[in-house]
């Protein structure tokens, strides 16, 4: 598969503050890619640099094979974006905004479609001065999608959205990606990202820590846990501890599954120990804990490397 976006050895500083360090990655066409990392990691900076808003020190950014610089970036015709917060002219209506930024003819039907997909019909003809946070956010997302982009870059798109709007957005992203649109989405709402993204870019202190798939990350951290509801949780925990099963610090009974044998083993142990089992749940690996683990490991590695260098 060809890559729609390719970033190689990108370095970016603000004055003498080095914010992006040798960032390299490729985005595959039609994938939904999550960009995650702590506050100040450089997510927004990376996105803005890719969009030609910032000058960069070295490296290259190519969209569909064409280089992007702040001065010249015709290939951005293939890109739609929403960075940090949507820019809204208070004196224009939502409809005016969409028309203003829509390129070419035959756009009206498409605009109308996006409006109804995001449920914005009721206020789209009103001046944006009076929009709520979530209304503005939805308008920003609609603006990112208005020109049939091949690549969509969204920075914190779920900001301020209610549950219905979050679901509408998720559905919209999935439909568009099935049609071949690539998405790069940064978000701190990991549960949402876990449902959306196939690939992950993990960034910390301006470096890409890991480029992986969601599936691999969850699997590699081996975080499949089994949660039990029993007639006597206290006794169950004691039995499990004695049998040397690894448990989470959760006050409920949660066992970390090492392999497929774990489940039958603990069931037998508990039944034989006289504890009734009321309910069993397998918890999928969880992005939050996996991510925190990866970040912790990478920081440890980095500290060690730094100490060695001294």
């Amino acid at each position, binding site marked *: 598969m060809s890559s729609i976006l390719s970033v190689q050895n990108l370095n970016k500083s*603000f004055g003498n503050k080095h914010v992006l360090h040798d960032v390299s990655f490729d985005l595959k066409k039609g994938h939904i890619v999550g960009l995650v990392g702590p506050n100040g990691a450089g997510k927004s900076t990376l996105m*803005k640099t890719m*969009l*030609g*808003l*910032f*000058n960069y020190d070295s490296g290259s950014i190519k969209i569909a094979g064409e280089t992007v610089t*702040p*001065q*010249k*970036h*015709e*290939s*951005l*015709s293939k*890109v739609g*974006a929403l*960075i940090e*917060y*949507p*820019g*809204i*002219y*208070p*004196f*224009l209506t939502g409809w*005016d905004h969409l028309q*203003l*930024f829509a*390129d070419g003819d035959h756009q009206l039907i498409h605009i109308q479609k996006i409006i109804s997909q995001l449920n914005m019909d009721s206020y789209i003809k009103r001046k944006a001065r009076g929009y709520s946070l979530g209304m503005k956010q939805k308008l920003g997302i609609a*603006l990112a999608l208005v020109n049939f982009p091949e690549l969509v870059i969204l920075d914190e798109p779920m900001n301020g959205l209610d549950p219905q709007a979050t679901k509408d957005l998720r559905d919209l992203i999935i439909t568009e990606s099935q049609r071949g649109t690539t998405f790069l989405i940064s978000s701190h709402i990991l549960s949402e990202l876990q449902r959306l993204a196939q690939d992950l870019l993990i960034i910390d202190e301006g470096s890409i820590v890991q480029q992986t798939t969601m599936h691999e990350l969850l699997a590699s951290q081996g975080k499949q846990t089994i949660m039990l509801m029993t007639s006597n949780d206290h006794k169950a925990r004691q039995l499990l501890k004695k049998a040397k099963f690894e448990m989470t610090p959760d006050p409920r009974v949660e066992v970390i599954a090492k392999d497929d044998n774990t489940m039958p083993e603990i069931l037998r142990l508990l039944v034989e120990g006289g504890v009734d089992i009321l309910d069993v749940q397998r918890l999928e690996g969880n992005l939050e804990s996996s991510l925190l683990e990866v970040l912790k490991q990478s920081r440890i590695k980095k500290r060690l490397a730094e100490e060695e260098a001294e």
Partner: protein
Amino acid sequence: MWTLVRQESFKLTRKVSTWISTGFLVGVEILFAFLSRIYPQTFVPANMFESLYFSRPIIIFYMIAATATIITMEFQYGTMKQVLYRRYSRGQILVSKWLAVFFYTLYWYVMSTGIALLLKAMLFHHTLSIHQGAGDGMSIFTRGLAISAASLVSLWLLLSVVFLLANLFRNSAAAVSVGIIGYFAAYIVTQLLTILIQKWDWAKWNPVTMTLYPSMMARPGYYQSLLNMQGWQMLLGNFIYIAIFLGIGYYVFNKRNV
């Protein structure tokens, strides 16, 4: 490029301030036309017509503000990112704003001239002819046009500075104040300028002198000898300074992080 100019014009037409100020300007013209009709000794009809019923200073102030905000509003509303991350280059974006402001300036001059002609036809139909002589073989109509053309050129000298400052400071207050100070500067320092020019002839080539171009068009004999300059020299000087200031603004805009 024309798409971009159209987009900038669209934003202007959707601003309430555009229409309020248009209404205000028409109101001022009507007011001075009536004053001139009632008190022709104080407000001499021929002079009032030549001055487009006092429109030009209003146009200048309004255009200074409009130019500053066409840049700074994008920073204020956070829309600059959206405007820039499209296929258009930064240069195209800035040039489209220049062009939009240029057409906007034309709009004001054409509109105020049209209203002035209309008022003249309605209130001074028999008492004033636009072909009435105004010295140097010009009629009051052609003299009015010449002053308008000169005022447009030196207005653009101010606007080129306002563009530069709006880009540097992203703040319209700074850009507007400097523009307005620039407008008055020439009148305030005319005395000083003439002393300087009499001492060193080359001093006449400073940008502040150039803003006196419309005054020279209104009273050529007086200003030509005072400043030791011809009309064409003034025109050339204005063009050179406009190019310099716009050029620096262009450079700044291309270099900045948004």
